[in-house]
Structure formats: structure tokens, C-alpha cells
């Protein structure tokens, strides 16, 4: 199976440290109907229906990996991509109209081969990074397990779960002395009805890996899209809220640690994602008047997941107190060493800008002078990720 992306050390057969990603997205299900009615031949399908976002989401994340992901210690080596887009996605999502030839359908046979090859690639150097992203209908077992994502040919035979990706079983198999010690699992699926979980032992077994019963990788973080009490939500055309939140956390200051790393870079780490990702998923869902809770499991040692090329742009919001001061105040934000970021900016009633991460001084001038308000010459603005917000008092002490 040819990876969609193969670059760096992965192209010359060396085992130099690099990142190997496996991305799976299933929107088209061969044996599901559009309305959740029973599948052909009376198949057990748990009332599931065709969906429109998982393949979009998987391709969005894969493209982010291909274009933006950065790891100084383990640059991107391979992306294995398995996509089963729905008809709707192929007609309405420009990127999915012509998917790359290397992106093969996410069937049991293809996923089994891809997992096997990904495992082999990840097992040649403990300094590799392993990333698995899977999106589709799923059975969430527990945050420390990894869940089960249903594949395109789910329900082909009565042992319906033979046609699934068992992320928990894959994760348990990703062990050994030369196995990638930094592993990140993103399970962007929601639970099917409880009866599927109740009966899952008798419904077949998904694609997994043999468990060597060795120790666990140093970092084996699992980020889940939804808890059993909620549904994972998606916006057709844009992907699931989970992948939207994930990419935002990776592309903006939302998920960035609040200080530079020892190598002088800014990074999104395993642990900053633990707090930032569920928060952003919740915010996106709330904006739609909906509710979604993401959870995390596994071992979450604080190591970088993604290193930014430069400084993150940090949103700052500075307001003035008491009310009324903002109408006559102008702000100047500057770095004493590097100069002004802006000057003469009106408070309306706050100054809200994005600035490169840094420690700045804010000067507030009142024009015209308007007692009891007073000028402020050096108010420190530590613009560190994820954001800075403060209200500055500009009145004489009473």
C-alpha cells in the first residue's frame, strides 16, 4: 500500500526518527440506509445511517498534517490515508471531489493492511512519533480504551464488528522496545446505541494488533470526540466539530503552551491539548446551540505534539475602568527593544488585537485630559498563549 505522503527519512528506508500517521475517515457505509432503517437483508445496523462529515474531517486533518505539522525531532515521514467519502461529500466538498489515488477506501481489508504497515513503520525507532486519527460511527468503550470505529463494510456479515477498527486493540499492540514512544490517538466518532456496546463481545472483532504484553509507550494519549452521554456533531462541508476544534488548537494560540520550549520554539503539547481541545469543542457546539463533550485518556506526559514555525499570534483584550474612560483614551502597545505594535488605537471600549507572543508595555493617553481619569505610562501586557485579557483602571485612587 502506497502512503499518500512519504517524505524525509521514510523515503530512503532509514529508521531515522520521523512521524508516521494513519488517517481513516468513513462517511459512506455500504450496508447503511439514509434514514437508519434496517440494512439490506435485515442486517443488524443499530439504527445507524449514512453520514456526511467523517471523510471530510479525516481529509482535513490529513491535509493539516501534510502542510503544517511540524516536529523538529520527528519530521513527517508518512501519512496513510483511508477515505470513504459519501456521495454528498464528493459532490459538495471540493477537496473530496477528486481524492488522491493513494487514498483508498476504508474497508476492513484495506485498514488491516494499513494498520499492519503503519505498525511496522512505527516500530523501527523509539524516537518515532505515531499518530492515528479515525472518524466515523463508533462504539466508545472508555477513554482509556480507544473505542471502535466502524468501517465502510460494517455489517457485511452477521459478525458486524469484524468490519471495524478497534483503536483500543491497536493501541495496546503499539508496544515494544523500538516502538514509537510518543503516540497520539484521535478518535473522532460517537457512540452507537448502547445495545451495541452491551453486545459488542458477540458481534465480532475489529482490526487490531497482537498484544505483546510489554510496557506502554511513554506517551499514549487518547483524545475522544464525545462521551457516551453526548453525540458527536458535525457540520457538513466543514467536518466534525472535533476536527475543527483540533485544527484550531493546532493552528492558533488556543493549544499552545504559555512559554517557549527548551529549543526556543513554541509548541502544542500533549497536555495543552487535554484542556484546550475539549474547551474548544464545547464552545463550537454551544455556538450551534448544541452540546458536545470531548474527553481524554491514556498517558499524557507533557511532550510537544506540534511545533510552530514562529511565534503564535496571541489575542489580547484590554478594557478600561471606570466606564467612560474608554471614550477619551488612546493606547500604544510597544516592545521597548523592538518598537511599537500599534499607537493611537482607540478603546472601543476595549482594544482587541492579535499580537505575536511576547511581553509588552501598554501606554494609555487621555485626549483631551479628562479628570478624574489619568494617563498610564507602562502597563505590562504579558501576551502569552492562549490569550490575555485585562481591565486597566485609569482613575485616581479615591
Amino acid at each position, binding site marked *: 500500500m502506497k502512503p499518500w505522503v512519504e517524505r524525509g527519512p521514510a523515503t530512503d528506508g532509514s529508521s531515522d526518527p520521523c512521524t508516521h500517521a494513519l488517517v481513516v475517515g468513513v462517511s459512506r457505509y455500504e450496508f447503511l440506509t439514509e434514514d437508519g432503517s434496517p440494512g439490506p437483508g435485515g442486517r443488524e445496523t443499530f*439504527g445507524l445511517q449514512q453520514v456526511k*462529515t467523517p471523510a471530510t474531517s479525516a481529509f482535513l486533518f490529513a491535509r493539516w498534517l501534510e502542510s503544517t505539522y511540524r516536529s523538529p525531532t520527528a519530521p513527517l515521514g508518512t501519512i496513510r490515508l483511508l477515505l470513504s467519502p459519501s456521495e454528498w461529500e464528493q459532490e459538495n466538498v471540493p477537496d473530496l471531489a477528486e481524492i488522491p489515488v493513494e487514498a483508498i477506501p476504508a474497508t476492513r481489508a484495506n485498514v488491516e493492511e494499513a494498520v499492519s504497515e503503519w505498525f511496522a513503520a512505527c516500530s523501527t525507532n523509539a524516537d518515532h512519533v505515531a499518530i492515528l486519527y479515525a472518524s466515523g460511527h463508533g462504539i466508545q468503550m472508555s*477513554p482509556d480504551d480507544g473505542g471502535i470505529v466502524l468501517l465502510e463494510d460494517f455489517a457485511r456479515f452477521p459478525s458486524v464488528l469484524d468490519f471495524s477498527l478497534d483503536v483500543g486493540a491497536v493501541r495496546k499492540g503499539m508496544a515494544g522496545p523500538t516502538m514509537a514512544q510518543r503516540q497520539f490517538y484521535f478518535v473522532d466518532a460517537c457512540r452507537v446505541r448502547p445495545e451495541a456496546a452491551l453486545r459488542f*463481545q458477540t458481534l465480532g472483532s475489529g482490526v487490531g494488533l497482537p498484544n505483546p504484553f510489554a510496557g506502554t509507550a511513554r506517551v499514549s494519549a487518547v483524545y475522544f470526540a464525545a462521551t457516551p452521554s453526548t453525540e458527536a456533531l458535525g457540520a457538513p462541508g466543514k467536518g466534525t466539530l472535533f476536527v475543527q476544534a483540533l485544527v484550531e488548537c493546532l493552528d492558533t494560540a488556543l493549544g499552545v503552551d504559555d512559554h517557549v520550549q527548551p529549543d526556543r520554539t513554541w509548541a502544542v503539547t500533549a497536555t495543552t491539548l487535554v484542556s484546550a481541545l475539549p474547551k474548544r469543542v464545547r464552545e463550537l457546539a454551544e455556538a450551534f446551540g448544541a452540546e458536545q463533550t470531548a474527553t481524554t485518556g491514556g498517558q499524557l506526559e507533557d511532550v510537544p505534539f506540534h511545533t510552530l514555525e514562529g511565534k503564535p499570534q496571541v489575542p489580547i483584550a484590554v478594557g478600561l475602568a471606570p466606564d467612560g474612560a474608554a471614550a477619551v483614551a488612546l493606547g500604544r502597545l510597544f516592545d521597548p527593544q523592538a518598537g511599537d505594535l500599534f499607537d493611537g488605537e482607540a478603546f472601543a471600549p476595549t482594544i482587541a488585537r492579535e499580537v505575536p507572543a511576547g511581553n509588552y508595555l501598554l501606554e494609555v493617553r487621555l485626549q483631551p485630559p479628562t479628570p478624574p481619569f489619568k494617563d498610564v505610562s507602562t502597563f505590562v501586557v504579558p501576551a502569552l498563549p492562549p490569550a490575555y485579557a485585562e481591565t486597566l483602571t485609569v482613575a485616581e485612587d479615591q
Partner: protein
Amino acid sequence: MSATGTLKVQLDTAGPYVRQQVNVIDSTTLELVASPACGEEVEVPAGTYVVSATLPSGERSVGVAEVAANELSELALAGPAAAAEPPPPPPGAGSAPGLEELGPPAGADATPATSGWFLRFRVRTQQGFEADEPQLDVLTATSERAELTVRASGEGILFAQVARAGEVPLTVALPIYGPTSSQSCRLTLGGQAGALTADVSLPDNPQVDAVARYLQSGHPAEAAGVLGNAELLLQQKMADPFGAALGGYALLRSGQLDRLHHWPRNLAGMFPWLPDGAVIAGEEAALEGDHATALGFVCDAARRGLPVFAAGFSLLAARLREYAGARADAFGENGGLVVEAGQHLESVLRVLPFVDFARVSFAFRGARVDDPATSQEPFAAGGDWKEL
């Protein structure tokens, strides 16, 4: 070598024993210089520092400190904003226009609730679950929200069952137990119609409460840091096994296995009624690659019953699924437990689909604490349910 000074950061927190870790960041290079605990003095090169602390709620408090050579500089960071209320739940989940729901089509079973709060308690004894009537102090009770203090009445892990009309009851484990230092907790009931919530907090034990809230807000390293040495909680005259268990989960989650160095085995041994101790000891062994020992602890934990914390149930379910399908010869003399693990897995799977893993306390939907799978009907008053 540049001159140094001393920095001491104070943070206004809920209790004097809650000592959060703070980040001391060089204001010029923006590098992390030190990570002392609040109240701890740390020596740093003279200069300007940005100091940040993550509060248990997940909010951040930031300040700037000037450190002069050979002097002690003190910085007081702002503590939590006034009485942090839980974020308002989103209106009407599930049917937002333009959003696709993965999973089965939304059912019509989310009936708006209009009645009051109903409550009852179950305690797990060696004979199984029995009705219990712990001491209650109802602090507030409106149709939107209720707050009460529950005091442990004796031995056995206590489960509160909460209900509103039209909703499946919610069962939540309470981290209180008579013969320990954890004798009371606060139970806060709320949530939109169709999304009943029951939050557990420990106002009488601010340090452990902070650990729980750090875990809830996704900050396991801070949770482990604020507790310091969780093992000490087992050595006090009135031991705090719940605090120790939370500390254990925080250390497991944040990958700090070296700080466990097998004290969870003491937790498991000293408190045989608490499944969480055996869960943590088993997980520690498994992460070290000693799966034979791990299987022993995992089965021991499952025999004890349902854990008190959601992390415990998650770890237990994951390990049972792993071990139940394994070959017995992978576990040496404990190989005979593989069959038992399979039996426990069947029991766990009957609870798992109904668990809310987004909460620290172990909570699941279902009227029957011993079999939620068969009790997913909306609440019906009667029996020993009492309205607040």
C-alpha cells in the same frame, strides 16, 4: 554569573493547604525558568518575570514580577474570580440546524422536566447494594438547581441517585466513608432538561477538591502537583484514601510513574472496600509491563465493585477488555484469572454505555445501581425516592 534574587508567589486560593504550581517565565526570552509551588521561595536571576498559574477551574492567573538582586520579591496573583459558578449549560442540545449528528437519529425521548428533585441513596455492602439514609443538609433547592451536603453514616461506599420527572435517574458515587477523614461532600444538582447533572465537591477538604477540579478541567500535571505526596494521605491518623486515589489517577494520567513507586499497593491493601486502590495498583503494574500482577489487581478491583472515580472505571474497563481476550499463558501463575476477567468484563459492559466519563466522580444513568442496562426508563416517583 548574573546576580540572583528570590521570588515568592502567593495565590489567593480556597484553602491554605492548596499550593498550586506556578510558571515563572523570563519576560525577555519567554523561557520557563522555574515551576515552584505557591508560597515557595525560588532563586532566579535578577530581572522581570511573567508568572502564571492555572487555577483548578482551568482559568489562568497571570502577573509580572520584578526580582532585584539579593532581595526577596513577592507577587500576589489573583485567585479565582468570585464564586466560580459552573458554566451555563448550552440550550437545547442535539438538533442544531446545519449540524449533523453521528450515531442514530435523535429520538423523541428528551421530555422537558418540570418537577422537583428526587433523591435516594444506596450503600454497597458485602451483601450487595442496600438502601441508606445518610445525613443531609439541603443548602438550596430550586427547580433549576439544588445543593446539599451529604455526611457519611457508616461503612460502605455510598451512591446518590438523583432524578427529575421525565429523565432517566443519575447515579453518582460519593467519595465519603465513615471511618476515614472524608466524611462529607457537597452534591450540586443541575443541568438542562434532559441533561441532569450531579457534581460532587469536597468543601471540607480543599486540597483534594482542588485535585478533583484540576482533573475535571484537564490539568492532570497540576492535579498531581497540588497534592504533593499523595502517599502521605495514607499515613495520617485519619487516612484519606479518596484523596490518595485521586492523586494516584493524576500521577498515572500525567505519566509520573516514578512518583507512584508502588504505594498504590498499600492503598489497595489498607482499604479493601475501595476498588480504586486496586485499579491504580493494577494500572501501575501494567504500565511497567508486569501484566501478571496487573491482572491480579484488576480482578481484585472488579470483585470489590464499582470504583468511586470515573477514571477508575475507565482504566478497569480498558484492562478487562485487554485481558479477557488474552491467552492465559501471558500471565504466568495468574493465567487462571483470564476467565474471571471475562466474567467481570461482562458486568462492566452492562454499565459502560451509561457512564459519563467527562466527570471526575463515577456517574452513570440508570435507576438500578446494580444494573443500569435494564433500568433506562424515565423516572417514576414512588418507592424510597424522596423529593427535596
